[in-house]
Structure formats: C-alpha cells, structure tokens
C-alpha cells in the first residue's frame, strides 16, 4: 500500500477545515466518541445542529476560540488503496510560514477556491508558495459549488483563469475538481448536482493520483547521520556510517566521492537491519562501510565519482523568513541541511519575491516574518548541494539563530 502526503491551503472562509473534516467523516475515519464531543462543541460554539467539521482539525484552545487554524495539524486516514497524511495549514497571510512548513514535506497541494469569488490574492499566494516548495502536483478544488447553483460556466471560468495564471509558474501538473465540502458534493461520491462533471471525485482522485517520486531516479546522494562504532572485542574494527539514501541508489563496489573532504573511496559493504545487501535505494536507512580510512563524520555526503554535486561556501537561495524578529545584518546563523551544520551568514539580500505575482522586486535590505527573498549565503564549512529544483533533499536547508536556537528561515537553493 502506498503513502500519499498532501497539504491543504485555503482562506479561513474557503471551507478548508470543513473539507478535511468531510474527507475524514465520509471515509469513516472519525470515531463515534469524537463525533459526540464535536456535536457538544458545535452546540457550545453556536453553530447550528450540523456538526461543525472544522472543529475536527483545530486542536488548540486558541484555535477553537477564534475559529481559525493557526498551526499545522496532521491528520491521517486510510482507504483500501492508500494511507494519507494531511498537513492542514492555515491560509491567512500572517501564517504563511506555517503553510510553507506544512507544504515542505508533501507530494500534492490542494488549493481551495471559493466558487463565488474565483481566483483571489490568496489563491495566487498559495499557488506561488506551492511552486517555491516544489510541489509536483497542484489540485485546485473549486469549492462551495452549491452557492453558485452548481453552474458549469462558473467552474469553467475559474479553471480558465487559473490555467492562465499558472502559466507564469513552473507547476508540473495542475488538476481541477468542483466540490461542496459542506454538503459533501463530489468529495467522496459523484454528485447528481454536478451532472456535467465527468472527472473523479476528490476521494477517487486522491486514491489514484500518481505519486511523483523524482528522488528515485535522481543522482545518488547519501549523508552520514551517525557513526556506529561498537568497540567491542568481536567488533573491534567495525566502523559503519548510518544514514538514509537521500536519492538514487548505491551498490557495493561503487566508487564514491566523499564531501566536503573531497576524497574518493569504494563502498565495501552495505548493511540494512543486520543483513548485508548488494544495493540500496532512495529512502532506505542503511549502514555503509568504505574501504579507506578517511575523515568521515556526521554531515559528510557520499556521491558517485565525477558527479555534478556542487560544493561551495557561497551560494544563492530563496529563503522564507520565519522568525517574529526581523533579520539583522550580520546576524550569526547556523545552516542545517539534513544532518550537515555550519555557521553561516546572509551576505546580501538580492531581491524580494512578490508572493502575489511571483515577480522579483528590488530589496530594501530588510527581511521580515513571511518575506520571501533571494539572498546570498556564505557558510564557514563547504556545503555539498544540488539546486532545489533538481533535488529537494540536498537543495533545502533551514537557518537557526545561534543565539535563540530558533529556526528563523527555510531556504531552497536556487
């Protein structure tokens, strides 16, 4: 059975939480005791006798009180075909960082559009963020169809507008589905109210959509997380490099380049769960042994020899600033890419990216919460990376404030 991770983005009033509630409710993923609690809550929050499905996802007291989603919530459901992980993210502009966070780890974005309002600034912003995060597939859910009399023309117009807008982005794939989350039209089952729509229901779409797994065919990348040295009598010379294959695959006997020390060696042995294996593929946790005694520690990257991996101390990236406190020039930062960490500084803020039209604008040198900027970063240690559009695993990083330890920015190498 496959695993599909997707995230939902929508404005507070687009019915995003209701849509998720509906998916869980109609797929029978909600237990009766939780439904009972919801019914009680719905009454106490003044919503009518219908269960307020949004209460399912808004798990914090502050969210229930304010009736909004603030933080990412993770929800799970399983059908006979797939397991799903939903990152339910807030749509409001002040929580852009939470949306970026929820999106970072997913294969599919669901962008909700209110059929009455068509493409709005929110739609554009959500789509552009999905684009920067590199989501392979965007599903545009044209919701609240019940409020426009299930009118096909309304649907077609929005579809046309969106397609036109999406031309300026690099989204790999875009799909459209008309729904009403509140009434359940076309969420799980086809709706008689939408006879003109021949495509799949949202549920059918989620169960069958192809999961893009670029990382399987990409250049081979491995990074050391932890060095295993039992130092017992029997395993006196055992020295294994534990980590996960980030992309591509590695075989016993492969000649590899080791970065950042820039030396070459050979894979002597690959172990997986105590068994020796000939070959290991993207996503698998393994222990790799090499034939030479060279300086390898946490954060060291293995790639095939003569590979296109870039190794630099200065590079350009798009960062999303996530800290409430704005960036201070000269601020001491740590850059973390998977398990690699180095001191870093932002040397220059080159451009600001307008998240409503994806255009670059001149920067005034500031970097505030939720800003997206193209920046030049300098690290103390050499970073081994790929451009994010080529490899999401080796092209992404976070910046940590050395003083507060907070994650202050997320970046993609451009």
């Amino acid at each position, binding site marked *: *059975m*496959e*695993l599909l991770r997707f995230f939902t983005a929508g404005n507070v009033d687009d019915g995003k939480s209701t849509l998720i509630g509906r998916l869980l409710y109609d797929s029978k993923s909600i*237990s*009766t*005791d*939780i439904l009972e*609690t919801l019914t009680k*809550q719905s009454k106490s929050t003044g919503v009518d006798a219908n269960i307020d499905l949004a209460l*399912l*996802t808004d*798990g*914090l*007291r*502050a969210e*229930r009180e304010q009736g909004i989603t*603030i*933080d990412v*919530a*993770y929800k*799970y459901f*399983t059908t006979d075909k*797939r*397991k799903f*992980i939903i990152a339910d993210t807030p749509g409001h502009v002040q929580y852009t*960082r*939470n949306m*970026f*966070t929820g999106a*970072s*780890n997913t294969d599919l974005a669901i962008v909700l559009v209110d059929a009455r309002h068509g493409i709005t600034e929110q739609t554009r912003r959500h789509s552009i963020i999905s684009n920067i995060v590199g989501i392979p597939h965007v599903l545009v859910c044209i919701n609240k169809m019940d409020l426009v009399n299930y009118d096909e023309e309304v649907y077609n117009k929005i579809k046309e507008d969106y397609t036109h807008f999406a031309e300026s982005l690099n989204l790999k794939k875009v799909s459209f589905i008309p729904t009403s989350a509140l009434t359940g039209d076309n969420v799980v089952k086809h709706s008689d109210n939408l006879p003109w729509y021949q495509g799949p229901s949202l549920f059918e779409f989620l169960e069958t959509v192809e999961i893009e797994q670029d990382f399987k065919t990409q250049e081979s990348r491995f990074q050391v*997380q*932890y060095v*295993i040295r*039992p130092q017992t009598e029997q*395993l006196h010379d*055992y020295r294994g490099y*534990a*980590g*996960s294959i980030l992309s591509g695959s590695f075989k016993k006997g492969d000649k590899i380049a080791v970065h950042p020390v820039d030396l070459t060696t050979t894979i002597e042995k690959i172990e997986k769960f*105590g068994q020796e294996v000939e070959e290991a593929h993207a*996503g*698998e*946790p393994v222990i790799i042994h090499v034939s030479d005694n060279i300086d390898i520690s*946490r954060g060291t990257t293995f790639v095939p020899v003569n590979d296109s991996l870039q190794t630099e101390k200065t590079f350009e990236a798009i960062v999303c600033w*996530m800290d409430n406190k704005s960036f201070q020039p000269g601020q001491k930062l*740590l850059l*973390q890419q*998977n*398990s690699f960490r180095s001191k870093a500084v932002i040397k220059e803020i080159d451009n600001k990216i307008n998240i409503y039209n994806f255009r670059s604008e001149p920067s005034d040198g500031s970097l505030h919460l939720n800003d997206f900027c193209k920046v030049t970063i300098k690290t103390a240690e050499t970073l081994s990376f790929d451009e994010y559009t080529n490899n*999401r*695993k080796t092209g*992404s*990083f*976070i910046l*940590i404030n050395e003083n507060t*330890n*907070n*994650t202050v920015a*997320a970046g993609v190498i451009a």
Partner: protein
Amino acid sequence: MDYLDQLEAEAIYILREVAGQFERPALLFSGGKDSICLVHLALKAFRPGKFPFPLVHVDTGHNFPEAIEYRDNLAKELEEKLIVRYVADTIKEKNLQDGKGKFPSRNGLQTYTLLDVINEFEFDACIGGARRDEEKARAKERIFSVRDEFGQWDPKKQRPELWNIYNGKIDQGENVRVFPISNWTELDVWNYIKRENIQLPSIYFTHERECIKTEHGQWMNVNEFVQLEPTDKIEKVKVRYRTVGDMTCTAAVESEAHTVDDIIAELKDTKISERGATRMDDRVSEAAMEDRKKGGYF
C-alpha cells in the same frame, strides 16, 4: 516503498538524528506497544552497536505486572541499560498528595518523577512513543518538541519543522521530547507489529478478568488500588487492553482477539477511538491533553 517501510524509515531517521544531535538522550519506555515498537526501531537503527541511550521507565506503582515483567525481560535480553524511577518515592520526597477517589490516578503525579529523572541524568532529549492520531493537541506537536527547563510545552512558540530537517539545538537545562512515530496510527502500529512479528505483553490479547463497570460503561480491572463501593458488581469478563497505561486509569475493552490478526480485524471494525475507549484522564475537559502537556507531561 510500501507505506510501512516509509514510516519505519522515517522513525529510524529520527532516532539517528537524536543520536547525532544530543549528548545525553533517553528512550522513555512504558511497556506499552508504542514504546515496544520504538525499541524495535532502535535495534534496526543502531545494531550491531549499542543503543546510544538508556531505557527509562517512570514506574507509577499502578502499572500492570505483565508490563513490568515484559520491561525487565526485554532490557535483560537486549543487554541495554534500564533506569527505573518510582512515583511512590517522589510522593514521599516531595510530600505530595497521592491520587484520591475511587480510581486514584497517579497520572498527574508521574510528571514530577519524569522531570526529576530528566534533571538527575541531565537528559537533553527524551524519545517517546506518542502519536499524532491519539489526540488533537498531539496532532499539533512537532516531532522535535522543545521543552523549557520546567518541561513545559508552549504551542505558540513551536519551531517550524521543515522537510526532514530537525533542529534540536537547545540551551543548558532545556530538553527536547522526540516522537519518532508521530505519523503512525493505531492501525499502522498493529500492522507493523504483525509484519515484524514483535512480541507483546499478554494483556493486549483476550483474557478473563474481574472487572467492574464504570458510570461511562467502561470495564475497569479490580485491583488493590480501586476503592470498591457496595453497589459495584464484580464480573468476569473477556477483555483485552488497547493501551497499557495505569491500572487505575486505563479501561479494558471486551474482546475475543487472541492474535494480532484478530486485533487488526477488530480495530478495522471499531467505532471508538483508542483514547476514547480506554482513558479516563482525557475526559475531564476539551483541552485536557493540551493543558497537561503545557505542564510538562508527554
């Protein structure tokens, strides 16, 4: 990759991040199925090496004897270090009020012992088996969840957690709670137990037990801690436990499930959530879990 392989790989990745980022981590072991899965995952992450952390158990004194026996056997068999600290000792040392009432719970009291053992060994990371599907406040918590020196969780100050990059950087005195199986559901855990043929304490499977029925219709085990009332009717019921918490706050469910397969079939059919079926401590209020976490609980 199959979904169980993906969940397994994610958990192992997280465990190795803990080993790589922290100096004095610990694995909180309760004897329940979720922490048993964690131990199994740690074997896959670190063998032939030793675990880079001890197993730590906060023994409330109200644990099921089957879980305690399992715990001791497991540590011995794996030759890993086990640290046990007792809530009863904390109550004495700190002169605390023990749980009262018909089902005298030590659920709140165990937070004191937990914070003490963290201080005693200066643990900078504590790995736990909590899952996001258990409860809606948990659904909002990070995989690396930073706690202040009082062990408190502040949902508004959570660090953004992007891709598979975990920021475990903390100051002296703080610690991180780490939840490697955050993305697993109850059913995923059982499917994994089946696939990996993991042995569990016997109370997870059907057995006959003397119980009384609570006002909410839950079956509570009769034991030395429960204050029986004259109106209580002791009945012999065929039950099993869906979660293994304290005897004083965990209810049994009626079940004929003898095997892991039976349990999986039962769960696919059930209409009641794991905590809803078995926990008395979450019923107090809508934000019960959120509040306990803010107070240092897991």
